[in-house]
């Protein structure tokens, strides 16, 4: 028996490794640093590792190869773009997370107990969220570049487990938060079981677990496609669950609502990017040659996702739930990019992910600012008159809503335009028409919120806009600026993506 020593290309793995290192240092800080020093040092370590990871990604942007980790990961243009996107979002998310008002003081304390009150008085902090976030980020960085099914599964779990945990750490309405964690966890585990089952069948079909191996089996396969299709179907269940596509979406409104808002923002933005990155790679690289079999199903899923998300969002009364449904609708739009299955689909998806992710984070950041004595106010009715109370906050939130609605001169419009044109290019008229229709429906509720904020009088119920902490303010400002700049001058980014994005096989 010959054992070949594995050769790892550490440069290409460096973003992941840096983030993991940051996470481990974070854990060590938790273990050894004095309590009052933890928060700042954690934040510093987190930001430092994320920024260095970003720098690392940028420095290797020209590299490409499938041998970074013995065929387990592929590094290519698309990988660079998606990793960079995730890291940027993560940095902004850490800004929000650093605003510790969002997190419980002591997760182990029973809600409403004396212990909880004391820990609040003592100003305890769950600084563990930083390493947890970093672990999640590491998983997200790995997920879209994984080229074998094991790595894919492991990455999925690495990104999910911290999120399950963090969903339960809300400072207020902790019962809801814990419930969100429970639901997210149970359903997440349920869907990963499907994912794994899918892996099993794909392995059974092709005898290999690498994406390129599967692709070769599809091209040159003998026998019939039952195992392949079962594999694709079950794998898709897991993947579509992560992006919140109907009918695998049900967790997202509950979890978005229950989780601490900073985490919701992080989850909504970064998970979507990572998951779509993975979906794009899997479908473009491994399944492309079986497109005529999976595409109709995906078209149907995309259509009902767009419509469902938009229609249900209309009736929402809670801003976080509304954003959740909106994110479901956006998952549908993004699926259009997968369905497109061409270069412009890839480019469009990456642009869309970037634009959408940043705007989503910005929107949730604004949600953290609207508070009353008992914490965040997410009841939309109590947002009425926000434009009067705080014109700037309301305007920025309106900007994010407009970009979600795809109004020109915002990044969302360019994204929508490019993704739908890519889908239409590959012949999906149905996607185009449904997309347009559901955008119209979606506009309905985005505008409703704008009306509420600007055209209704404020109710005097103690709801107020807190001054954002510097970090939150920076996050919001960056998100707003990116949204506008990408709406007006998208050309540099678009052509950069166009020239950069590709999948290596």
């Amino acid at each position, binding site marked *: 028996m010959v054992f070949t020593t594995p050769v790892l290309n550490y440069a290409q793995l460096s973003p992941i490794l840096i983030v993991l290192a940051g996470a481990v240092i974070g854990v060590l800080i938790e273990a050894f640093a004095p309590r009052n020093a933890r928060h700042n040092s954690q934040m510093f370590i987190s930001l430092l590792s994320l920024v260095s990871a970003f720098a690392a990604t940028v420095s290797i942007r020209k590299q490409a190869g499938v041998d970074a980790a013995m065929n387990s990961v592929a590094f290519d243009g698309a990988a660079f773009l998606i990793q960079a996107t995730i890291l940027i979002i993560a940095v902004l998310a850490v800004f929000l997370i650093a605003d510790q008002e969002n997190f419980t003081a002591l*997760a*182990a304390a*029973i*809600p409403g107990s004396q212990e909880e009150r004391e820990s609040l008085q003592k100003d305890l902090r769950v600084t563990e969220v930083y390493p947890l976030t970093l672990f999640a980020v590491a998983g997200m960085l790995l997920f879209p570049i994984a080229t074998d*099914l*094991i790595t894919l*599964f*492991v990455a999925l*779990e690495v990104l999910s*487990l911290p999120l*399950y*945990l963090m969903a*339960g750490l809300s400072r207020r309405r*902790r*019962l*809801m938060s*814990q*419930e*969100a*964690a*429970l*639901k997210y*966890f*149970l359903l997440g*585990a*349920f869907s*990963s*079981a*499907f994912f*794994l*089952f899918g*892996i*099993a*069948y794909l*392995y*059974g079909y092709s*005898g*290999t*677990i690498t994406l390129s191996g599967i692709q070769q089996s599809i091209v040159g396969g003998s026998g019939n496609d039952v195992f392949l299709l079962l594999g694709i179907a079950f794998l898709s269940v897991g993947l579509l669950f992560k992006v919140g596509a109907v009918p695998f979406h049900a967790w997202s*409104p*509950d*979890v978005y*609502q*229950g989780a601490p808002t900073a985490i919701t923002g992080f989850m909504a933005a970064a998970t979507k990017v990572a998951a779509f990155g993975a979906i794009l790679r899997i479908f473009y690289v491994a399944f492309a040659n079986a497109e005529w079999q999976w595409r109709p199903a995906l078209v149907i899923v995309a259509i009902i996702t767009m419509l469902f998300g938009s229609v249900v969002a209309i009736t929402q009364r809670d801003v976080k*739930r509304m954003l959740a449904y909106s994110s479901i609708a956006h998952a549908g739009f993004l699926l259009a990019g997968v369905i497109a299955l061409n270069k412009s689909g890839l480019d469009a998806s990456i642009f869309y992910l970037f634009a959408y992710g940043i705007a989503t984070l910005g929107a949730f950041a604004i949600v953290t600012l609207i508070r009353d004595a008992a914490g965040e106010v997410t009841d939309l009715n109590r947002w009425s008159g926000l434009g009067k109370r705080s014109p700037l906050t309301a305007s920025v939130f309106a900007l994010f809503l407009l970009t979600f609605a795809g109004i020109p001169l915002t990044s969302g419009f360019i994204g929508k335009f490019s993704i739908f044109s890519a889908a239409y290019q590959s012949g999906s008229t149905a996607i185009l028409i449904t997309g347009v229709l559901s955008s119209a429906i979606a506009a309905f509720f985005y505008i409703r919120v704008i009306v509420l904020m600007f055209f209704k009088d404020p109710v005097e119920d103690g709801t107020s806009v807190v001054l954002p902490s510097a970090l939150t303010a920076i996050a919001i400002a960056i998100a707003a600026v990116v949204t506008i700049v990408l709406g007006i001058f998208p050309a540099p980014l678009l052509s950069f993506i166009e020239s950069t994005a590709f999948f290596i096989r």
Partner: protein
Amino acid sequence: MNPYNYLYVAGLLFTIGAIGVVVRRNAIVVFMCIELMLNAANLTLVTFARINGTLEGQVTAFFTMVVAACEVVVGLAIIVTIYRSRRSASIDDASLLKR
């Protein structure tokens, strides 16, 4: 005997696990059902490893076990937390978030 028979068993076990998630209310039992599904997937992997004559399937199953172990830790921690808050392990009781 055809090794496919293992696949049938795995399919049935996966089905039972999936249904268990839907019908059982105790969060721990639900979680156990998910474990059953993972086991079914593992059985499929092992069987396919045998059919395909490669060990990748077994490696994957091995990974699954590790991952499942981690999942169990996190999952049970969450369940215990919610049990401590609510004095109930029924997932039906956790339905504040809806609509």
